Structure formats: C-alpha cells, structure tokens
C-alpha cells in the first residue's frame, strides 16, 4: 500500500498548487513551447503586413523622418557635437539602436493587460508572449539596420570620415543586451500594471525621457559635467556608443563597458522573470 502510494506520488505529471516556489521558473516548459514563440512572431509579422498598404516601406520612412528631424533640430539649430561624424549618420545609428530597445520595452510592458482575454482561457507559459514580442522586434530592427547600412555605404562612397571596423563583431552582444534589457524591464512593468494600470502610460513617456539620458542625440564625449556619472550608469550608453564605434569608427567609450551592460541586463532579466513568475499565477483574478 505504502509503496503504491509512493509510486503514484512520483507519477503525477502535473501538480497544481496555490503558489510555486519563487525559484521554480519552469524554463523547461518554456522550451517545450518554443514552437508557439515562433508562431506568435510569425503571426505578428504576417498580420502586420496584411494590414498595411506601405508594408515594409514604413521601416524606411520612420527612421529617415525621425533622423531628418534630429539632424535639423539638434544638428543644425542646436548645433550639438557629433564627434565630427556626419550628423545624419550619427543620429541614424543612435536611432536604429534605440528604437529596438524602446519598442521591446514598451510592447512587452503591456503583456498582461493586452493578452488578458487569451490568458483567461488557455494555459501556456506566459513568458511566451514577451519573448515573442522581443523576437518580432528583432525583425524590424533588422530592416532598420539595413536602412542604416544603406546610408552608411552611401556616405562612405561619397568620402565621409566613417570607418567601420572589427568591433562590428560585437553586434550579437548589442542585440542580446538590448533584447534582454527591453524584455526584463518590460516584464517588470507588465507585472506591476496588473495592479497599477497607469504605469503603462509612464512607460512610453519614461522610455522617451530615458533616451535623453542615453547618448542618442549627443556623443558621450560632449558630456563632461556632474551628470556624466548618470549617463555612464545607463546600461544603454555602452550599447549606443560601441555601436557607433563599430560602424562609424569614433567613440569616447571602450567596448569593455559592455561587460557592465551585460551584467546589468542579466540582473534586470533575473528580477523581471522572478516577478513575472510570481504574478502570472493569480493575475487573472485582478485584471
């Protein structure tokens, strides 16, 4: 009798309990649902193109317009330094990188509220959604990046002082940091929005403010005052700076700072996944 009891105890494939241990992240289960991640990525991609007329052209128009505005306002009117780089290319580089991070952050931050309908009916690891968002954003980042490359080649051909170099190989690390940071911060916010809806407004606005604390529209070298530590503490600073170093050849920052960003990303991601994991159990009762 007791042996049989013991045997069945071990045979349960699933035990539903009030609260799981906080360290029980069930990443294995997430791996089993990897097909679903890809299908969501693919769904977003297909659905997006079916609904727009201009389709991929948006990826061309949006960065060019934003960069054009930056060039006129910050470059021509405010006359901010661009480390001697062509202003258009300087802003385009910063913009390309920044957009990926901020889009990942803002769209993952609404995970719970915008998927309440789906989450209320079926179970799948909730992390599938923010993960798929970050991967979808990589596609649009890729398209923006191609636009950037196009302009880079054009500027090089017309004899500008830009020198792409071997630091280009750092790009996978850039992507990992941006994706991880966007995901980590996004799921922290999305977990908090199950209780406080207004945090969501704060995200779009906060992401914009954060951009000014990142060397997107100015080079790090132009910041010398008491605020420099703040810019340096921003984990996105090394990403933007070393991205420019790799593709344009000029930066005041050593790529070694990326290690700091990596560590920061890992920490944010860990905290994010832990909080997310805690909230996903019961959020259906409060949303």
């Amino acid at each position, binding site marked *: 009798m007791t042996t049989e009891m013991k045997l069945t105890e071990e045979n349960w494939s*699933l035990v539903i309990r*009030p609260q799981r241990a906080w360290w029980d992240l069930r990443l294995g289960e997430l791996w089993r*649902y990897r097909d679903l991640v890809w299908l969501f990525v693919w*769904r977003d991609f297909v659905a997006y193109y079916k609904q727009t007329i201009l389709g991929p052209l948006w990826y061309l128009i949006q960065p060019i317009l934003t960069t054009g505005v930056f060039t006129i306002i910050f470059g021509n009117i405010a006359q901010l330094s661009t480390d001697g780089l062509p202003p258009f290319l300087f802003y385009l580089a910063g913009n390309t990188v920044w957009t990926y991070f901020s889009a990942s952050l803002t769209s993952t931050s609404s995970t719970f509220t915008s998927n309440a309908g789906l989450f209320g009916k*079926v179970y799948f690891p909730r992390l599938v959604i923010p993960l798929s968002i970050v991967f979808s954003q990589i596609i649009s980042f890729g398209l923006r990046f191609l636009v950037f490359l196009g302009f880079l080649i054009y500027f090089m051909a017309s004899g500008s002082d830009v020198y792409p170099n071997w630091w280009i190989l750092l790009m996978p690390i850039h992507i990992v940091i941006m994706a991880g940071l966007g995901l980590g911060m996004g799921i922290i916010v999305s977990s908090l929005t199950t209780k406080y809806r207004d945090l969501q407004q704060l995200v779009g606005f906060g992401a914009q403010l954060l951009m000014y604390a990142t060397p997107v529209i100015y080079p790090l070298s132009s910041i010398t005052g008491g605020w420099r530590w703040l810019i340096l503490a921003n984990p996105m600073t090394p990403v933007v700076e070393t991205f420019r170093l790799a593709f344009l050849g000029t930066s005041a920052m050593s790529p070694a700072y990326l290690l700091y960003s990596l560590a920061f990303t890992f920490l944010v991601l860990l905290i994010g996944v832990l909080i997310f994991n805690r909230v996903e159990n019961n959020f259906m009762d*409060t949303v």
Partner: protein
Amino acid sequence: MSDTVISVEHLSKTYQLGVIGTGTFFGDLNRWWAKKLGRPDPYAKIGEADHGNRIGESIWALDDVSFQLKRGEALGIIGRNGAGKSTLLKIMSRVTAPTSGEVKVKGRIASLLEVGTGFHPELTGRENIFLNGAILGMNRAEVARKFDEIVDFSGVEKFIDTPVKRYSSGMYVRLAFAVAAHLEPEILVVDEVLAVGDAEFQRKCLGKMSDVAHAGRTVLFVSHNMPAILRLCSNAIMLDRGRLVKQGSAEQVTNYYLNSNENAEGAVAWAGENAPGTNEVKLMGVRLMDSEGKSKSLVEINAPSFLEIEYDVRQPGLKFRVAAGFNTQGVVAFTTNELYETQHDRPGRYISRVEIPANLLAEGEYSVSVSLFASKGLKIRYVRAKNVLVFQAVDYIAGDSARGDFTQNLAGVLRPALAWEKIFAGELQL
C-alpha cells in the same frame, strides 16, 4: 500503477469582493495621502462610508472540494450559476491558481473553455489551425499530422486559405472546435462549447467527445444539458455555492440536481418601477404551475402544466394581447398568444393563464419569453421580456409518455404523443 489520473484534494479558492486597490498607482497614492491627513477616502462611494467591512470581504468560490477521476472516466460537473464550476475548470486548466489545496494530474490536460481562443482574424484558416494548435499545446509536427483530419471535421475545406475574418460565425466555431477536438489529450476539459453551432454540428461534437471518452481518455464535462451529461458521463458531481454536495453515478446526480431544482420556485415576480414594461402596462410576474396550482420549475412532459402571466394595467382603455414563447435547444420551440386583443377598460391587475397540454414539450430546459402587444391599428409593444422563466421538462420514462418503451435519445424541440397504427397490406409476391 494506480488508475487515478486526476486527484483534486481539498481545493479552495477565494475571491476578494469590493475594491482592494483603486487600480492606479496615482489613486493608491492619493488615498494614502488623504488617510494621512485624516481626510475621508476620496475613492469611497457616497453612502458607503459606514460599510467599511465591504473592503476585503471575500467569497469562497470553491470550498474544500475533493474528488478523484480514473483513467477513461467521463465526469459530469453540474450546478447552478455561481456554484463554482467555472472556477474549478479554470484551476484545472491552470488559468488561475487555487487559494489552497491541490490538483494532481497525470497526462496532458486540454481545456475547451472557449473555442477559437487566439484566432487571428487576418490569418487564413490554415494559418489559424497551426497557431491555435500551438496555443493549445500541440507542436508543429502534431498539427501537421492531423491537419487533414481537422479540416475534414470542420467542413470548411473550400475556405481554408481565406482569412477567418471572412468566415461566418458558424464556420469560425466549427474550425475552432475541430482544432480543439483533435488535440488528443489524455484529459479533456469541456465547458458548454456545445451551446454553439447548429444541431447537426452539435451532434458531431457530442459524437467526437464520446469517441474521446471511449478511447480510454478522461473527460471532464460541464453542462446544463442533462441529457448530454447522461449520455456522455458515467459519473457526475454537483457543486453548490463552492461545495461538493453530491457525487455518484450520472443518473443519481442529475436526478438530485433536477429534484433540488424542483424546490426552487418556478416563478418570477417584479416590484414597483423595476418591472418590465411601459408606464401604461407593467409585467408583475410569471409563474409555471402544475394542475394543483403549485408553482414549480420541473414539469413532467406527460402531465399538463399552466403558465400564468400577471400584469398591471395603469390606464383605462388599452387594447392588447398577451403572448408567450418557449425556447429550447437554441430555437423557439413554439409561441402562443391570446386569440384576440382585448380592451382593458378598468385599470388594475390582470392574470392571463394558458394551459400547456400534456405531451407537448420535449425533455430538456425551456425558457419562456413574454410579450404584451397591440398589432391592430397602431402597433405598440407594452412588454417584451425575454427568457424570464426557466424550467426543466423531464420524462421519468415510465412507459406512459410519447416515448413508449424507447429509452434512448429522442431528437426534437416538441414531443407530441401521436397515434401510430399499423396495418397488414398484403403478402409479399416472392
């Protein structure tokens, strides 16, 4: 190895009632600040101040529920609205977590809480099959293997490459159910999906579910459709206000359910200005009674019953007639009305009464809609009250109803006892 595939142990779930937080960070901050300054809560509703106990009040949606399910068993879960059925299914399908207790499961659970979840309108039927399959827990290879079967079952082959936003709602549901029905989980959790689709499709779904049950897989089936529970499930449990009140064979439990309903009033009544109707005419009550004048919500199909409609006429001289419609299985089974419009010269309370003869209704749940209207000359609808009363028609299968001695499922929304005759028309020319 034991054959128990689901073990629910002391499962409880509480929900908080009332407002816990204000829902926004700014709101909570504001409330905290007001409290600190000794001002009244800016978010309290007027007149609510002395009802402080409302905050944090909780309701037990499930209260210490335990049961077990063996492999291949089909368990029906019945209970009135708010009994905790949906909460139980939500916990079992892991949409929400229990407050205490646990559920142990062997094998894959698939729930059909609502079909079509995650369908994207812009994607084609084909694309949605893959997406929906993955949401429900299948991998791509599995879906690909079952693809033809799914399309076949849904009957939308011709439109499989059309975006589902162009589908009719029936096609949409059929496709969605087809995906879910082909999950091949070890445990299937179904919550009244059968309320959708036409009769033929419903039959197909029930067929598919009994295939599942007979293929040695385990089914948990929540439904108000007692005949369906009786046909599909071997055992059943009944929940009432979160507690498990009856457990046993499907016949025992459905009988218990229907009988406990019998005690419920087969009547509704309104008071004052809340009553449906216009200023001139108000519907005050609707009752279903047996021939002894006792109101009941359970009628035997081979005995007559009476529907009484009570209404106030507040102005003299109104002319109208009373009508009632009986709905079952998603269609209007029949409507009946007073033969002539009558002039109500004296204001006051009136009662219109109609006999529902024996051997007219089929088994199952009926809902009654009532309408008071004038159609001669000026068309006026004084009262239109839909589904005001719900009752069950039952056949105790004693051999004296329209069934004769046939005991299996009989289709139809009406069941008149018709006279059959048989004559011998001659020898065969062999």
